[in-house]
């Protein structure tokens, strides 16, 4: 999922942008014109184990699965669900089972990438088209987050905040979270954050504070860092929302809320809620030290992916790579991005 920095300005997801490489689904499907709705789609999900977070963010595989169930309600599809459980062998056997059931299309979300070439071979041999999520499966079209762009949005937001609120200051900056995560997603996110900060504040070089994947460690790391920098403004880019909340605690306990601002990654349910839920990113809490979080909309993947699948099943072309449209969500736009119903 490496995303070159040169792609910063591109419009994403379903934009059908001119020049985008298009993949003919018709070329992959055996006889797409023979297929008629309701279509049978297999969705092999990355990992539905309770409590297991995915992609270094606060979402779970169950969030992704639920989004498919909801998005499928009004579409002419019957979905067979599989759980790859974060395991290569399980992913291969799930794909084999789906193929044996002669599904019309396989949606494969498998982070154990060693299995993906075999899955691609089996599907191709059976003439079943594949739509990949997150990780390539042969030459199948891919839908994924744009991690570099999401990071860049956060870096840009921190820089813009500095120019607006602390125009006479040269702040410090930190990237806080599971820095050591070797996944491409996290690497790209961090690169994006740095690019965003550098573009806005060329003289500022963020410090990496590695929580080792334990969000609560972010509290200690940031507390120590702030002690060493008693009179400086600090921009904080956290790699997930749980870390952002721990960082907020550290800032409040250190009585440094006037010196710090946090922009996070993910926008999972822990930081936003309904009209009557008190959450960190909330229209009534716009003075929070957590300025916002870059939305990944993993709880809406089904709404993005199933329309692509529909197009493939109809024999239409789809982009080789479609991306989530990330946006910075703050107290000012959270209800627009996640409309609540608890005011009806």
């Amino acid at each position, binding site marked *: 999922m490496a995303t070159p920095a040169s792609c910063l300005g591109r419009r994403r997801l379903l934009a059908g942008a001119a020049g985008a490489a298009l993949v003919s689904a018709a070329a992959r499907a055996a006889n797409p014109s023979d297929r008629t709705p309701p279509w049978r789609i297999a969705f092999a999900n990355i990992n539905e184990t309770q409590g297991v977070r995915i992609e270094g963010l606060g979402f779970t595989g169950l969030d992704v699965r639920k989004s498919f*169930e*909801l998005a499928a*309600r*009004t579409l002419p599809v019957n979905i067979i669900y599989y759980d790859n459980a974060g395991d290569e062998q399980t992913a291969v056997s799930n794909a084999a089972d789906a193929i044996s059931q002669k599904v019309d299309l396989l949606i494969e979300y498998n982070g154990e990438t060693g299995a993906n070439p075999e899955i691609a071979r089996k599907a191709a041999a059976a003439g079943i088209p594949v739509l990949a999520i997150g990780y390539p499966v042969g030459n199948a079209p891919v839908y994924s987050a744009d991690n570099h762009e999401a990071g860049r949005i956060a870096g840009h937001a921190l820089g813009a905040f500095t120019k607006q*609120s*602390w125009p006479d200051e040269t702040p410090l900056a930190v990237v806080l979270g599971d820095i050591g995560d070797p996944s491409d997603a996290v690497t790209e996110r961090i690169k994006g954050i740095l690019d965003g900060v550098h573009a806005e504040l060329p003289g500022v070089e963020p410090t990496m504070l590695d929580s080792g994947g334990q969000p609560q460690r972010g509290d200690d790391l940031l507390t120590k860092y702030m002690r060493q920098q008693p009179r400086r403004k600090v921009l904080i880019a956290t790699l997930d929302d749980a870390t952002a909340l721990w960082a907020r605690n550290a800032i409040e306990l250190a009585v440094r*809320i*006037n*010196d710090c*601002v946090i922009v996070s990654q993910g926008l999972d349910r822990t930081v936003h809620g*309904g*009209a*009557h*839920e008190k959450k960190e990113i909330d229209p009534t809490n*716009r*003075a*929070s*030290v957590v*300025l916002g979080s870059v939305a990944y909309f993993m709880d*809406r993947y089904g*709404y993005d992916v199933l329309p692509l699948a529909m197009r493939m099943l109809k024999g239409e072309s789809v982009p080789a790579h479609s991306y989530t449209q990330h946006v910075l969500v703050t107290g000012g736009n959270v*209800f*627009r*991005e*996640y*409309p*609540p*119903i*608890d*005011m*009806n």
Partner: protein
Amino acid sequence: MKLKKLATQAAVAAIVVMGASGTALAQADCKALIQPSPFGPDDQTGASNRITPPVTKAAAAEIKTGEVVSMSNVLVDGIPLFGTRFSKDILTAVGLVPGAEFGKNQATYMEDTWLSQSHVGTHFDGLGHIGIKDCYYNQTPMGKFVTQNGLKRLGLEHLNTFATRGVIIDMVRVFKEAGKLKKNPNCKADCIDGGTVFSAADIQAGLKMYNVTLREGDVVFLHTGYEDLFLQYPAMNAVYNASEPGIGMEAAKWLADQKVVAIGYDTFALEVWPSEDPTQGIPVHVFLIANNGIHIIENVRTDLIAAAAAKDGRATFFLNMTVPKAVGFTGNFVNIEAVR
């Protein structure tokens, strides 16, 4: 911190704008955002215009036995409410104090001070409840008409009577007979699970079940069984409020085309939740109330009338529902009865 300062400044600015001029809020082009009313440019009555004397007279023919079936839930502490919503009765009983009696016959009195938000329990959504930006029913720029003590337009006082025909549609039975009933595991009786979308075809199947054709001026009630969770208050309040089965936009459009006056429901918001399109805010509410002047009645108790219909095969009744002339209100708690 600058953040706090900015927020404070923004809040102060908002208050100044609101206080300085009512018109300052009317920023949106309401003609572009909301459909005009079919009842004329000055209309504040909405779909209840359709309840004419002939409609009421025809509805009266539904009274065959005089049986009255309650369709309201009790309003009491502990029922499901969202967040800060509340309804509280403060009883004034000083008349019972010895010596406070009136006259030689020692008459006494008691009364209530009812502190409540209007959209609680079995309640009715008025035309001033839902809009797009500051644009409400009939392209009304509501910013001009909002005051601290109610609306200057589109209040409940402008509505007609609701003495009309009611129709119960048993969606539980529709889903059961179609073999697609997915029950919420917390319901004790049959209920349709949250998130289930009702199509126009589902509603039509429910009407066909009782050989009913909708008429202009009808009030339609849909029984989903979800009230089973309401009735388990407070234990199931969180489950009840988390999601609901309901109509999607396609069904809403079909019902609007039938020229109904209101749609009642045994859930908290009538429309399916989570919504068909997660990027839209209560789209069915906007479509029905703001664009069509059709009211929504929420948290209705539909199980008793659904059972009565199943018993004798009659799904229509005379609707006895009174909406108070509460000036400037956006909605209110209502009592509903089906007279058969």
